[in-house]
């Protein structure tokens, strides 16, 4: 098999070939390292490439597989971690200057589990500084670029994690999501991003943005790959007191089949406007789901309309608490964009934070009520396609120039508040050749249903055309 062909295999297919010894882990690793070298000047998805460690781990994986000790679907599989995930002996920056030389002495749990499963770490991925923003335009490590148009943002904060998967410079990566930071970059880059239920995946060893809103999850090429990754990283962790003891099923068993009898609640009223192409794509996505047998109802969840505000009122005081010592000692090392967001929480009364947490209880109640009569919720993802790097405003259909970031989290933030599992799946390309996505949300700990619906939709819609990795779009 030609090395470059290895890059086109999804996780499940590559895993079978590794197990059968049709390909070696070292060949796979070298193919990806070559791809990283070729694409990094264009995409800038990585902060650290761990080439030597990857080669060592790949050789060890080949030896174990040859000796009949296959560990499972991740044995010999290349992965990447958002550089918010601590890795023992490997610098972990959080995308910041504050931690530019921080070398943890322990692994985060997600990497412990992937490593134990035999995964090969290719490197640590670029992100928005301290995960506190949605562009991944990082002032310390450079802007991450969207593989479908390198003049545009990949979204964020897990921008490097999504861009690497789409640019084929990694196969499966880890992102984190506090207001939408797994799903939004996955949507803008054209891959799959799964935010599991709060507590489903351990946060241990992941640099905190918000104690009660942070989620850790997979960013992958396909829904099946996301299910495979969740199989490895999900489960109780005594090092995370918020991690759940709910049993972890084999998530791949939910894949396959149609959507006959599946009842979907459609929410589209959380944004004041959409680009017309986004609305058309969403309608087409609903048509596909209906053609697969789903029953659709339009619903509204009133408290969700303040979801963006609630996430801000919860996340910023929690961020200040986590960052306070760093801020007092290294204020000058924060960017001018992120520092005021942390500082702003200094003058917010505790009652505002408590009220926002109470609002979350209301949001969960209203969402649960909708899900008594429905199996899942379907929403659009972002209101526009990826904006240009450095662009701060977009033109709404009314002609007004408005900031785009609040609109990008209008449909994601509420589900960080409720902690429900939510996935972003590509729904097509715009006429300009930029990815558009749809979001599917389930009941708490019902990732299986979310993956079932997303998998059926993905299979029916088919894969997106590959990205151009050039400035400007091909269309």
């Amino acid at each position, binding site marked *: 098999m030609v090395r470059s062909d290895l890059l086109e295999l999804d996780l499940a297919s590559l895993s079978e070939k590794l197990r059968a010894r049709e390909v070696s882990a070292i060949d796979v690793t070298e193919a990806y390292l070559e791809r990283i070298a070729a694409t990094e000047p264009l995409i800038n998805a990585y902060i650290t490439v761990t080439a030597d460690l990857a080669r060592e781990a790949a050789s060890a994986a080949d030896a174990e597989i040859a000796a009949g000790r296959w560990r499972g679907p991740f044995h010999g599989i290349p992965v990447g971690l958002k550089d918010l995930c601590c890795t023992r002996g490997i610098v972990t920056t959080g995308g910041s200057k504050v931690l530019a030389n921080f070398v943890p002495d322990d692994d985060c749990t997600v990497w412990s589990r992937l490593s134990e499963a035999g995964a090969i770490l290719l490197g640590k991925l670029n992100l928005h500084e301290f995960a506190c923003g949605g562009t991944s335009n990082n002032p310390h490590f450079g802007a991450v670029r969207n593989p479908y148009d390198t003049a545009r943002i990949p979204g964020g904060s897990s921008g490097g994690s999504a861009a690497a998967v789409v640019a084929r410079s990694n196969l499966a990566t880890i992102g984190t999501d506090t207001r939408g930071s797994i799903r939004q970059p996955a949507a803008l880059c054209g891959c799959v991003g799964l935010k599991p239920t709060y507590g489903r995946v351990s946060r241990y060893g992941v640099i905190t943005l918000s104690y009660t809103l942070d989620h850790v999850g997979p960013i992958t090429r396909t829904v099946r790959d996301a299910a495979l990754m969740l199989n490895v990283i999900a489960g109780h962790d005594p090092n995370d007191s918020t991690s759940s003891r709910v049993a972890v099923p084999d998530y791949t068993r939910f894949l396959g089949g149609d959507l006959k009898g599946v009842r979907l609640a459609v929410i589209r009223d959380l944004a004041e406007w959409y680009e017309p192409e986004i609305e058309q794509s969403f309608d087409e996505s609903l048509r596909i789901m209906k053609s697969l047998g789903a029953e659709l109802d339009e619903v509204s969840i009133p408290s969700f309309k303040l979801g963006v505000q609630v996430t801000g009122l919860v996340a910023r005081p929690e961020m200040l608490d986590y960052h306070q010592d760093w801020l007092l000692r290294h204020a000058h090392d924060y960017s001018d964009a992120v520092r005021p967001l942390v500082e702003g929480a200094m003058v917010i009364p505790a009652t505002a934070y408590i*009220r926002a*947490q109470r609002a979350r209880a209301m949001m969960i109640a209203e969402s649960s009520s909708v899900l008594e009569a429905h199996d899942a919720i379907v929403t659009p993802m972002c209101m526009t396609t990826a904006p240009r790097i450095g662009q701060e405003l977009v033109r709404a259909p009314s002609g007004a120039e408005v900031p785009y970031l609040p609109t990008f989290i209008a449909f994601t933030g509420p589900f960080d508040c409720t902690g429900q599992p939510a996935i972003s799946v590509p729904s097509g390309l715009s006429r300009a050749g930029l990815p558009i996505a749809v979001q599917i949300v389930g009941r708490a700990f019902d990732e299986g249903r979310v993956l079932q619906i997303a998998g059926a939709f993905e299979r029916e819609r088919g894969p997106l055309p590959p990205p151009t990795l050039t400035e400007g779009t091909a269309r």
Partner: protein
Amino acid sequence: MAELTPETVMRVAREFYDYPMNAETAAAVAKIADAMLTDARRLSALGLDGVEPPFSYATMVAEAERLRRTLSGS
């Protein structure tokens, strides 16, 4: 509702956090904080009377157990 002034922001930062802030920064922070306070007031529209904050005793006990294990090295 009165807006936060940069002077108030500077004073709170200095006296509560021992954190020096210049007037330009304080003006930017005041705008951000004002927006957050407006957001907090808007939450009243949700009718939160009788809704308790979801701070969980079970989570506190689990965190205490994690700390105990860390301290005892087990």
